[in-house]
């Protein structure tokens, strides 16, 4: 059992749960987007932690030494880069949609408006 030795992964899981609960429970759209971003960050933390090898150097070839055991795993770093870019793009898109929502309904409370619509439909 490596639960408390894998402290980076542990922190990532806790952050993921916090972000998910924010996403599910907050009624404010901006706070929902913040929750989504916390989930993104936790995934990046997890991936970056999986690439680490204790005692190894960063994956920049020094003095032509191409022995793979000297360096950490470069692949997760590249994947995290992709993830960050997509996270930035989706956050910008979500925030723009939230602003348009605010313009339309004069509130950021998404659940309240949806609930009101549902209640109105029932009457």
């Amino acid at each position, binding site marked *: 059992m490596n639960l408390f030795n894998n402290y980076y992964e542990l922190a990532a899981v806790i952050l993921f749960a916090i972000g998910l609960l924010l996403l599910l429970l907050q009624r404010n759209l901006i706070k929902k987007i913040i929750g989504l971003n916390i989930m993104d960050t936790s995934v990046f933390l997890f991936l970056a932690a999986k690439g680490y090898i204790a005692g*190894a150097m960063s994956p920049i070839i020094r003095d032509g030494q191409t022995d793979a055991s000297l360096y950490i795993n470069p692949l997760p770093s590249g994947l995290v880069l992709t993830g960050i870019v997509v996270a930035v793009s989706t956050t*910008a898109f979500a925030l723009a949609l939230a602003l348009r929502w605010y313009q339309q309904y004069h509130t950021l409370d998404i659940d309240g408006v949806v609930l009101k619509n549902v209640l109105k439909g029932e009457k």
Partner: protein
Amino acid sequence: MSLLSEDGKKTVLSFGDWVNANSPEIPPEIDYAKGGDPKGPGAHGHDDHGHEDHGHEDHGHDDHGHEEAHGHDGHGHDDAHGHDAHGEHGHEHAHFEPHEIVMPKREKKPKVKREKVQLTGVEHSYRVFAVISGILLALVLLVTVATLPRFGSADAPAVNEVSRRYLEQGLTDTGAVNAVAGIILDYRAFDTLGESVVLFTATVTVIFLLQQSKRKNGEEKTEDEVDVNTGVRSLPAKVIIGITFPFILLYGIYVVLNGHLSPGGGFSGGTILGGGLILCHMVNGERFTERFITVKRCTQIMAAGLFVYIGLKTYSILTGANGAASAIPLGTPGSIFSAGLILPLNICVGLVVACTMYALYNLFTSWRS
């Protein structure tokens, strides 16, 4: 901005109100929901004031100093009005002479009624279910983490022949000293092209979503907008940015150009460049930055960068990937002009990222509801 100050958790705009919010003939009465108010009966006492005209209503509420009434003031109006309400709230507290303050703007827009929303049974069970499922998921993930190989162990399954191949053959394949740059701009260059297109698409979508509303009522200038145009009114900030701005850009260019030699590259360097531009826009205002960069020019630069990227990579895929002789030398590893196409590709990516950052900031700050 008053967006975040809105506490959507406790109070909600009723359905009919945002429909009526833009129609001029709304009756001036305020109806608070009866009961279910956690802040006590004080907020309901304002029903007495509710039948006066608008200006007096505001003062009556602010005079009593209830947060409920204060929040109410900010919501029905656009951002500038919300700021007025916040600013003068404290002022009225100090003097207790609310009728002296003239707020003519408030009479333009009708009041928006707000009422408490009781948690329905469905919503209550939704919240309980959400908490339980979130905790269950976290427990499953924790069990997974407990069975993962130890952090930093060299014999983890993630360290397999793929990463070994990238490290051992990367230098001869790509010529890049930085293995990560070799992966993202040579082995997986098509993926990076997709990322840049995602950034471009996000910027175009935000332009589409936010500039439409700007065109509708662009003539009225609020106090916020003046700030965006001229920047902060602080001489030290302007002087410090005037001194450091060239160095921020220089550092960003350094990080972009050394992407194949050291940590960094188009993404991180582009973010530094974009951050410098954002800082300049924050301090000096749009009237200063629009001399050398605008949102339109950002999209042009991004499109040009993407086309150059596609052109270069098409050449390299057609020649190098087919085993034909490529005219691009790999150079000696470690020198600045090495690693084949990675340096120009880094520049393209850096331009795309910097323009994305600046364009997004500019669009979000210049947006008015």
